[in-house]
């Protein structure tokens, strides 16, 4: 479903954030991408939908011929709407209402003037109602996004990504700004929704414990290179040391 070949990114300041990533993700697989901060996790998922332009390499999406890196602007937009994205700081447009934020996920499908006058098709609106109900925020739909709590905001962020009806979710540290309880609820929600819709997902995450508990597959990234790719159960102390450096991992490794 997604395949990257020798994906590299060098920032204009000379920072080599990705040093050749080769990765293949089948349909419906939830992958956790772990690694210390600065490893290149955010850069990696942003090169997939080209919010960050990759320096070299290929990204095949949906089929073997569809190389995202060679698309023109309008085709890129069509691909972007098939890829949902969830952000660390929620990235809701704070001065818009919850409903507008959710509906903004449909922007790729409606014309400018319709979106300008907030005239979305009835079936989009119904889908928004359904999603808001699913995440338990139907009663909040008129609130402005900056009136919500962190956990609520992230739920709206999830609804915005899902209303795109994507084939792939890119999730950038969804729990980094949340308390432990909300973190687990959000992770659970994301994984459940992926199951329901048979969605593939790449989830960047700091927290090794959460990654092990919720993902089917773990990829360890360090300094722009993949250093582990395998089952959550395969994460041993030596491997964690390889990813994160020397530390007492005995309490972290799940058994």
């Amino acid at each position, binding site marked *: 479903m997604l395949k990257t070949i020798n994906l590299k990114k060098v920032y204009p300041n000379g920072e080599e954030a990705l040093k050749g990533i080769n990765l293949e993700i089948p349909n419906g697989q939830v992958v956790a991408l772990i690694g210390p901060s600065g490893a290149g996790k955010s850069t990696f998922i942003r090169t997939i939908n080209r919010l960050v332009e990759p320096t070299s390499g290929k990204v095949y999406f949906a089929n073997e011929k569809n190389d995202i890196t060679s698309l023109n602007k309008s085709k890129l*937009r069509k691909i*972007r709407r098939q890829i949902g994205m969830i952000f660390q700081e929620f*990235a*809701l*447009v*704070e001065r818009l209402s919850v409903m507008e934020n959710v509906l903004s996920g449909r*922007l790729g499908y409606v014309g400018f003037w319709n*979106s*300008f006058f907030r005239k979305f098709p009835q079936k989009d609106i119904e889908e928004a109602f359904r999603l808001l109900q699913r995440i338990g925020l139907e009663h909040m739909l008129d609130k402005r996004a900056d009136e919500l709590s962190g956990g609520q905001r992230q739920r709206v962020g999830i609804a*915005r990504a899902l209303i795109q009806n994507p084939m792939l979710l890119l999730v950038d540290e969804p729990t980094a700004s949340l308390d432990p309880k909300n973190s687990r609820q959000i992770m659970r929600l994301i994984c459940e929704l992926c199951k329901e819709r048979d969605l593939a997902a790449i989830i960047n995450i700091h927290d090794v414990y959460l990654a092990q508990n919720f993902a089917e597959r773990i990829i360890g990234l360090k300094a722009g290179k993949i250093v582990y790719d395998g089952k959550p159960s395969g994460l041993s102390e030596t491997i964690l040391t390889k990813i994160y450096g020397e530390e007492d991992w005995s309490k972290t490794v799940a058994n």
Partner: protein
Amino acid sequence: MNDKKVIWKRKPLIKNRLLRIGLILLISTYLLSVFLTTEIDWQRILEGIPRGKNFIFAFFPPDFITRSDEILAGIFESLWMTIVATIVGILISIPVSLGAAKNIAPKFVYFLSRGVITLSRSFQEVILAIFFVKLMGFGPFAGMVTLSLSTIGFFAKLLSEDIEDINKSQAEAIKSTGSNWFQWVNYGVQPQVMPRFIGLSLYRLDINFRESAVIGIVGGGGIGSTLNTAFDRYEFETAAAVLIVIISIVMIVEYTSSHLRKLIK
């Protein structure tokens, strides 16, 4: 060492002693050279004191009555000019400020828009007015064009700075949904800069009214023309009345706009 007293002094504003002395020297030479090169005709000023006194007394009592028609007409003309110029100026400023924001515009558009802003900011309203009056004839139209143009420089500069300061991830999130550029601006950028946009509009309305009082002096219509005529006719009581009217309107505008701004937040 021990017999030295510990003394404490307030930390000087500029730490480097050399720099401090250098600055003081620089400032005093500057002041001296200003004093030496500026021709001030003390004779004329001494003569001017009684003349000035007469002049000031000539303003009293302010006379609202004799020329009340002209004062009213001038004020209304200024108001129309202000309203039209503010709206036109802001409408043009919107694309210019998008073009002048580094994080939105391509390099070429960026430099073009910055050029427009710098040019429009370089010339004071009065200079612009002189030229527009020359090109388009006397009257409020030239004044309106002047005010619109200087609105662009002011508004686009400040708004583009606000656009450059937007929260990047909110805008990124909208981009990642596959929106086109206009949708991206409408959803990702506009909501973030709206409070500033409204604040600046009200502020500029206030400035344009005040400026309309002076571009009239060079033929740009409005209350400035009335003022100019009053001076030309040596009707200082009327001039005083005009000045008082200007001050009161500015006060009213300022009061309402600060209230409005509080409401919008």
